[in-house]
């Protein structure tokens, strides 16, 4: 890494500096432009009638009365949209043998989860559309519903997809080393079965879309609250047969996404089709109950795992079975098997052992689909591994810090390949562990815990190390045939006034993408931050790229911006050299001024270069063509993923009378490589941790025996609120990736990856004096009391 990237004492050294987000002031003034705010001329509103059954045949649908209602423009059933929309199938080639049934915007003859959209109404207002829904009659014939992992796997039980032999979507096996031998010769074996409840993203702004098809131009514009506008441009083009260049997807401000808003939803596809049928803009915003029954859910895993150790506490082997139940379909286009795949591949990632075996079974059931949501698979792999490590520590008689220190891959032993097949470039588990020990005053917490126990106060201390997948290459989706880009593109211009405009394919969901791109461009060009404008989220304007998912914005988007800026700077210096009769290498740019590279003496503002190039090209030497706009793409090469690592710790108190858990303090030491904006990184960690704490303690989509979601509202589904959440103490270790100049890796999922594991270990630590254990997330008061045999 070149030193200037971290030197904060020179002008315009924005990389590594905590600067506020330039685009946040609009949001603070209530001037955000969310899709749910958008109103277009002649816009109509869609509403959907949803299935009350988890599994049923559609016998008949009567829409006559609804069609007759004043203000209703269109009532569409499955067959209407099937005529214009090509079906989609949520499989990828690199998941060998996986199956999933074809999907359409609205079903033709069968519903497969309670809440599935069945009929669409488009009307002059949402209220009229909802009135019309009440006039529709659907005759269903109930089918047996499959609502849990066990009944889904029952031989001879109901099969969800006709034509399939069973409810299996996908199976995978990993087997490395000599697992049976390691267990046969182990001094200690720890084993546990874990369960992880379903939860969901609960973005504060629900899903929102406005599709606007112009039949005169044969062009479709979709204003879509999504992370991935290019992916949807491609999908709308291919499924509705509209040339790609005539499909524009605009993703403006978005009220949270966290992975949830990058999947194809039946309603969203339907809205596009409805706009095509009507030739008018059609808007759909999910209400909260619709969000709960139609947004993707995540997790829903049952994991049986065991770990073998020698007499000194050296980990020898892990053996894992992960059963996970998705919906009746695999989600498109990223599938619903990535989470399970990452669970079995992230197991044991921080540790040195070589013997590993895992089976993954992904199962269909009659619930809404699960798919990628913040920290895909990480919380499960982390909780299983770290709980087993704690159980092993107790069995061997080691402190949780000591067993980890003994078993971590040494910081100087990289590169390493894990027994699950991941290649790690450079991680810092040892340094992070050491730092966490100081940060949380571990010895002090243990002393306090011992004192309080004498007084009947049960505090728990938990730690959990993690590895996070960031900066994905085409190995993630591209190799499976998905048209999901792993590269990004940027177009950078020096404007006639000497400012810089950057159009870039990574997108903003509030994490600060535009801010860090701004910092990188300003830093690398040598310009005040206020003179750089970053534009994102419009396929008509910004170049095609992966956009934002899997923690790729800083590492890949940032490198794209860095390389593009260096090209623009080279071009500016070439023109400046001609004007000043110098060699380009003798010049530099500082704070918007051309300077002598050696003395830093000012020669000319870059605005003057721009003025001459744009308006007085006649004064440049003959044959000179100033190139003050550059376009540049960057695709990650080298390691398939830039893995990051870190460790979390927490202190909490369990009320053994009520089962309530009070979070006292949370700690994280994290290594995301080069930190571009420390404040934004810390806020990603805090937000991610709190999302993980929600999963650990509160959040679960609860279903009845008939497959009805029973807590689909924000009064019934508990999310973490300010009162229950602790303050979070943060420290960093920086191990930049050598695959890029910038050296940045991702950070958005690190908090969520280990927070629930940390709490699981801490709660078990707190109730250890009662010989009680808990192996199920969320850890509700009822589960605590049951473990304590008080309920």
């Amino acid at each position, binding site marked *: 890494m070149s030193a200037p990237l971290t030197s904060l004492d020179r002008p315009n050294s924005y990389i590594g500096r905590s600067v506020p987000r330039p685009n946040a002031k609009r949001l603070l*003034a209530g001037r955000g432009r969310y899709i749910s705010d958008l109103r277009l001329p002649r816009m109509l509103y869609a509403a959907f009638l949803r299935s009350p059954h988890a599994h049923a045949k559609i016998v008949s649908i009567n829409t006559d009365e609804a069609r007759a209602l004043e203000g209703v423009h269109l009532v569409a059933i499955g067959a209407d949209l099937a005529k214009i929309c090509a079906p989609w199938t949520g499989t990828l080639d690199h998941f060998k043998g996986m199956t999933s049934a074809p999907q359409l915007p609205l079903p033709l003859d069968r519903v497969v989860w309670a809440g599935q959209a069945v009929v669409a109404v488009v009307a002059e207002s949402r209220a009229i559309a909802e009135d019309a829904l009440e006039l529709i009659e659907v005759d269903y014939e109930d089918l047996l519903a499959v609502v849990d992992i066990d009944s889904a796997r029952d031989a001879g039980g109901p099969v969800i997809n006709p034509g399939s032999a069973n409810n299996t979507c996908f199976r995978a096996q990993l087997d490395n080393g000599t697992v049976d031998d390691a267990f046969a010769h182990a001094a200690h074996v720890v084993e546990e079965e874990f369960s992880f409840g379903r939860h969901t993203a609960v973005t504060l702004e629900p899903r929102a879309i406005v599709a606007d098809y112009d039949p005169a131009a044969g062009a479709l514009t979709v204003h879509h609250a999504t992370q991935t506008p290019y992916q949807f441009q491609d999908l709308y083009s291919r499924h509705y047969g509209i040339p790609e260049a005539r499909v524009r997807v605009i993703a403006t401000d978005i009220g949270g996404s966290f992975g949830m808003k990058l999947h194809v939803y039946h309603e969203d596809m339907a809205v596009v089709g409805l706009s095509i049928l009507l030739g008018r803009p059609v808007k759909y915003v999910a209400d909260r109950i619709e969000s709960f029954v139609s947004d993707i859910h995540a997790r829903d895993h049952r994991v049986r795992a065991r770990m073998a150790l020698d007499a000194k506490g050296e980990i020898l082997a892990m053996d894992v079975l992960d059963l996970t139940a998705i919906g009746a379909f695999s989600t498109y286009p990223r599938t619903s098997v990535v989470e399970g795949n990452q669970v079995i591949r992230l197991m044991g990632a921080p540790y040195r052992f070589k013997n590993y075996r895992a089976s993954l079974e992904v199962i269909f059931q009659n619930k809404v689909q699960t798919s990628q949501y913040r920290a895909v698979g990480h919380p499960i792999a982390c909780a299983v591994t770290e709980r087993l490590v704690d159980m092993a520590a107790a069995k061997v008689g080691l402190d949780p810090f000591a067993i980890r220190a003994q078993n971590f891959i040494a910081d100087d032993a990289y590169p390493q390949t894990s027994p699950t097949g991941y290649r790690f470039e450079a991680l810092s588990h040892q340094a992070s562990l050491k730092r966490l020990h100081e940060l949380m005053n571990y010895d002090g917490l243990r002393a306090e815990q011992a004192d309080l126990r004498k007084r009947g106060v049960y505090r728990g201390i938990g730690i959990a190390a993690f590895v996070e997948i960031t900066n994905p290459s085409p190995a993630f989706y591209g190799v499976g045939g998905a048209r999901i880009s792993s590269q990004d593109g940027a177009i950078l211009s020096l404007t006639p006034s000497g400012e810089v405009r950057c159009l870039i394919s990574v997108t903003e969901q509030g994490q600060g993408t535009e801010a860090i791109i701004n910092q990188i461009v300003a830093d690398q060009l040598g310009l005040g931050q206020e003179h750089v404008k970053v534009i994102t989220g419009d396929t008509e304007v910004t170049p095609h790229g992966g956009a934002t998912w899997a923690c790729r914005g800083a590492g890949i988007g940032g490198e794209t911006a860095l390389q593009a800026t260096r090209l623009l700077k080279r071009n500016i210096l070439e023109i400046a050299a001609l004007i000043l009769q110098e060699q380009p290498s003798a010049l530099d740019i500082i704070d918007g001024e051309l300077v002598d590279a050696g003395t830093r003496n000012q020669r000319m503002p870059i605005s003057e270069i721009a003025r001459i190039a744009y308006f007085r090209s006649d004064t440049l030497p003959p044959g000179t063509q100033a190139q003050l706009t550059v376009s540049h793409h960057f695709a990650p090469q080298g390691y398939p993923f830039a893995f990051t690592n870190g460790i979390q710790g927490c202190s909490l108190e369990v009320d053994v009378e009520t089962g309530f858990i009070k979070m006292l303090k949370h700690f994280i030491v994290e290594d995301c490589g080069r930190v571009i904006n420390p404040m934004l990184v810390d806020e990603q960690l805090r937000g991610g941790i709190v999302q993980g704490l929600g999963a650990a303690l509160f959040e679960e989509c609860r279903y009845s025996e008939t497959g009805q979601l029973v807590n689909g*509202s924000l009064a019934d589904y508990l999310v973490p609120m300010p009162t229950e959440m602790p303050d979070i103490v943060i420290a960093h270790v920086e191990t930049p990736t050598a695959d890029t100049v910038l050296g940045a890796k991702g950070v958005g999922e690190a908090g969520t990856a280990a927070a629930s594991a940390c709490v699981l270990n801490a709660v078990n630590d707190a109730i250890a004096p009662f010989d009680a254990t808990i192996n199920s997330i969320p850890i509700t008061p009822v589960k605590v009391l049951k473990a304590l045999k008080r309920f």
Partner: protein
Amino acid sequence: MSGFDETLLDDADETVRVRFIVNGRKVACEVAPRETLVDCLRNTLELTGTHAGCEMGACGACLVQLDGRAVHSCLMFAVQADGAAINTIEGLTESGVIADLQAEFHRRNALQCGFCTPGMLVNAHELLLQVAQPSREEIRDALSGNYCRCTGYEAIVDAIDAVAKARSEGGGAT
């Protein structure tokens, strides 16, 4: 227009005239009895800074200041607000009364997607009008009905705490 079937004009089409003072200006509009205040503000008056999150009073995204108090505009019909003085994020911004809160939220990045932010600010504003120097616990308690999925809340608590201290020291408000 002949042939119009009068029976199609059912109750849902009937509107009621309501009058408010919104962000300091007199406003009159025709609303359906079933229209909530948040829908009226957002759709009829185009004040889209107020957001609908849960539509049942649990998330705080729709908070507005109504006759001086923070009120869930999703739990109130527009007709119920007839005669009220309402301030939304747009009005509170223009009048400058929360400028110090907004600046501190910005400085500390106490927002990400920004969808909860107007409601957070309305509630923080009310808290600081009632309690000059709230403790961190009191701040967290006051925000217990404001859901934020992005931040983890700590920066929001820090920002409100800092503004409370600056206001108490006098001259801190900008």
